[in-house]
């Protein structure tokens, strides 16, 4: 959903694993839908880790643990690997997450998050390990994500880190603009490019 992004301060939901692939974020059977209704995908976020086959919640999974709340998902390394399905980003947004913190992201998924106004925040392994420890010890641990300042702070320890975002996407997020607005405003350049090409 298009929404302006500024500073977010929230508790965190930890899903502590490396290489979480998009098949885990949203299994392929949910790709049959033609809707973009984020709530539908959000209800099925991490479906096979979150629910038993009969639809009952698995008590051990963090999304089912009432101790954890907030709009920040904290994961591990290489988050969102595998399939390009944007349904994964829709599910994350639809659940209510606005920020995903990881040690690294898969390229396609990272861009899918940005295109859905979910902010991927890459932090160092150390920062992430400390954050997971803090959340484990105290689920009320809050994180402050400052997009204008490109800075993330663990409010439990006061530790801060710069995170890379890129000027263009930062501008889009802060102003709730999407890429199509930009591209369509640039149609003359596209036509000029086409007429100037030699090969095809």
């Amino acid at each position, binding site marked *: 959903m298009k929404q302006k992004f500024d500073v977010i301060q929230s508790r965190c939901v930890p899903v502590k694993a490396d290489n979480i692939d998009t098949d885990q974020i949203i299994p392929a059977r949910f790709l049959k839908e*033609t809707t973009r209704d984020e709530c539908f995908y959000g209800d099925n976020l991490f479906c*096979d880790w979150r629910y038993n086959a009969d639809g009952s919640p698995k008590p051990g999974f963090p999304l089912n643990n009432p101790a954890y709340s907030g709009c920040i998902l904290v994961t591990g390394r290489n988050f969102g690997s595998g399939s*390009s399905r944007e349904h994964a980003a829709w599910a994350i947004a639809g659940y209510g997450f606005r920020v995903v913190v990881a040690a690294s992201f898969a*390229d396609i998924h990272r*861009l899918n998050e940005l295109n859905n106004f979910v902010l991927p925040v890459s932090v160092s392994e150390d920062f992430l390990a400390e954050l997971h420890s803090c959340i484990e010890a105290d689920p009320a641990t809050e994180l402050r994500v400052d997009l204008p300042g490109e800075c993330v702070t663990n409010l439990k320890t006061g530790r801060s880190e710069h995170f890379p975002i890129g000027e263009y996407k930062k501008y889009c997020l802060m102003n709730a603009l999407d890429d*199509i607005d930009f*591209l369509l405003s640039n149609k003359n350049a596209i036509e000029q490019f086409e007429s100037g090409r030699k090969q095809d």
Partner: protein
Amino acid sequence: MNTLFDKIWDSHVVASAGGGVSQLYIDRLYCHEATTPQAFEGLRERGIRCLRPERIFCMPDHNTPTHDQDKPIADPVGRAQVDTLERNASEFGLTYFGMNTPDNGVIHVVGPEKGLSLPGMTIVCGDSHTSTHGAMGAVAFGIGTSEVEMVLASQCVLQSKPKSMSIRVEGELGKGVTAKDLALYLMMKISTSGATGYFIEYRGSTIRSLSMEGRLTLSNLCIEMGARGGFIAPDSKTFDYLKGREYAPEGEAWDRAVEYWKTLYSGEDAVFDKELVFDASDVQPMISYGTNPGMSMPIDGRIPADASPKAMEYMGLEPGQSLLGHKVDYVFLGACTNGRIEDFRAFASVVRGRRKAEGVTAWLVPGSWAVKRSIEEEGLDKELAAAGFEIRQPGCSACLAMNDDKIPAGKYAVSTSNRNFEGRQGPGSRTLLASPLTAAAAAVTGVVTDPRELI
């Protein structure tokens, strides 16, 4: 600098969006039914049409059943999605290769075989395995649905330029070692995130000696190392493969195209951001044991002592265990990874003189109707039928189990597909990724078997 990747990328930059983001012109957009309905809906909401409909090709492949394609799809949700693609293609004036027509198949098999994917092009699709088309010497990569909408609307995407990586492989692959094994070997070596942020150029004598089918398999799997894409500079094999294909240039246009394609190589002075070198003689037939493709090992190896406990629990395996002799319930030959004619020839070569093992369910799914026709022309269908195998109808099938081809929970499948993620081939399914030769060896013995023993 001065890499082939730079040449192709830079020649497609329309404008800069600032902050290192480029507006990149796209020569070819492929649309399948699973990742495009919301993009077309977006165009309708904005009240706009496709800027360059002639550059866009649509075909369903993810939901298509592999039996009875002449009948409506039984699953109403899957059927609605396929119908939606057909309606969208018609409404927006796009070429559509419908299910159960001679043109249809898995998008990444059909594009190259029709001559739609050409050297020097930029190619995208809402599908991570779009990297496959890199085998033709194109810059091809997967995108999300929002980006599909961008291309439909403007024939452009906005992308930061990835870094460049050279993967050079020298020497001859051994007996029973295929492009699939090389790809699994590379994943084992550099992990599923080792190429994140990079575009790979595969180079070296081993790569040059691969067939076009082998190159397509290798390029297909670069995403499993996290790469944005991967490609191989075009050469005479590429040109021979393309000549006379339905959408390839003809006559004078062909000559001009080849002249241009011959300029598509990295300069002697090319500088890559990262360079890796491997020796083909180190590569063995490979098999995966875990829940991502990097968790792979030589088929006669043992599962590493430090294998992820979560993966071991899901797979029902133990560190230190050998997979040789492990019972196999299902065998899947197909997918955009290994659903081409050469893969069926390889499978049949192992089966020759043997029969399908009792207790093994085998799904042999051609990547396209064109592949199925070749199988029949070469008589492989009859030969395989006599050995207890059936050739099904084309589609993505058990690679991601969006149709009825689901591996049941707890069952082991030796699969020529691309991912062994939890639940990928059906909830609870246990995937062992391998080559068509290894899949055939499992199919005729009923257990994981080193294909070198049978060839």
